[in-house]
């Protein structure tokens, strides 16, 4: 699998399921990919403690997540009723294993 990074997809605003009826197309950027290589001593220790049932009341994540570390400010579009809307932080701008 590829390492964690930004991927992009052309999508219709209405496909995003945000409740806006618009025919406009936007570029949706998201984060995906592998983060195994980014594991730290913390993750190794936490995994062992989870195996030994020292940690169990709550679910914990003992490996890094490939997630956005910055989002695109805003994207604006015209809906089918000729009204403009602006959505913030829809799209990722940077990804990292965190």
């Amino acid at each position, binding site marked *: 699998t590829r390492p964690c990074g930004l991927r992009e997809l*052309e999508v219709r605003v209405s496909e995003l399921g945000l409740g806006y009826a618009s*025919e*406009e*197309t*936007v*570029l949706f950027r998201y984060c995906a990919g592998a983060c195994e290589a980014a594991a730290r001593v913390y993750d190794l220790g936490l995994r062992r403690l989870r195996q030994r049932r020292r940690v169990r009341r709550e679910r914990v994540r003992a490996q890094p997540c490939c997630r956005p570390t910055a989002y*695109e*400010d*805003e*994207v*604006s*579009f*015209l809906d089918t009723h*000729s009204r*403009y*809307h*602006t959505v913030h932080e829809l799209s990722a701008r940077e990804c990292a294993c965190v």
Partner: protein
Amino acid sequence: PPVDCVRANELCAAESNCSSRYRTLRQCLAGRDRNTMLANKECQAALEVLQESPLYDCRCKRGMKKELQCLQIYWSIHLGLTEGEEFYEASPYEPVTARLSDIFRLASIFSGTGADPAVSAKSNHCLDAAKACNLNDNCKKLRSSYISICNREISPTERCNRRKCHKALRQFFDRVPSEYTYRMLFCSCQDQACAERRRQTILPSCSYEDKEKPNCLELRSLCRTDHLCRGPGLIHGQRTRSYVLQLGVCMLELKVLHAATKTEDPVNCNRDLAQPKQEMREDPGKYLEYCKEYPPSRYPPTPPTASQPSQSCLKACALERKVGRDGALLISTRQRWWLPPEASLAVVGHGCKAAERPRSHWSRLADFHANCRASYQTLTSCPTDNYQACLGSYAGMIGFDITPNYVDSSPTGIVVSPWCSCRGSGNMEEECEKFLKDFTENPCLRNAIQAFGNGT
């Protein structure tokens, strides 16, 4: 292409002959009309020499970094040379090159080999244009920015912040390549939904419409009397109005409280000054020039320094003056008030930060007239058969008081206009209609829009 005026000015300054003649010419132009100037031999000699210099042919680019400085240099020479109507034939902006020809495809309309009507009837070109913009990061960002600003309600009574909206629109049209902006602004439509999207492009309810529809000549004169809008020149406001000048990185706000029809005695201005009142009254510009050479060290508490040469002069001459928090210099005056190019030096180096983009209304309007005025001598009805130049001039007015837009969402009957009417024009009605028709019934502009729309 001609060199830009900022660069031309630098080239001229580096040459002693050019720079001395340029100084002479500016003195000639300051406060004198064309005839007076032409009568003076020294002035004529300076003009002749300068006609050979890069300064004479220089132009500016829309949205360039030092646009205002460039326009000021341009008008410092051309103001004395072109008067009244002649303005319409001169544009301070450089001619549009044929860079866009590949996306423009002018030929298609004349040869009839344009896009297939069956295909274009089904699709919404304006929606395609929005998609193209959204898929380009820069276009998407600046479009989203102006939409969110122009669409943001301030309060139940205030629809939006028109000033900020205009600024964001100017940024969009200045910074996004025209293949994206023109496509959104001049897309061709087959149905009303498309035409409505086209009309909505600039969010007209904020950027265009207003409570009242002003008289078109007033709208034009608002612009013509705006010092900045015209380049350095005479200000003769008819009522209380604020003018904002961006000088270097500073702003100089002139509040013309009341302008007399004729030269009035500048009551306080000459008080405490060693120079004869008469000269000052006749030509304050010259006085400022004088100030620069012989600083009125008696008047301001501290003698002027090299970095603030004529600020003290302005100080000496202004009736009321305040230095605002952001370093803006507020001057109120009751007289005809000349600001020669030298005046702009007055606050350069003053050290204030907030630098708004110049309000180059007049220059943009002059550019529109130069490039879009209907001509019966050309094939396309445009002055130079250059549709791109006309469309560029049209887009260049968006974000200023003169902002034009489609008047309705009719898909094919294209009518554009600024937000004004000719009601209340009095005996100027004919001139008003003439001005308005340059927008509403201009075959050059209409052909250019249609040619672009069909070409894509």
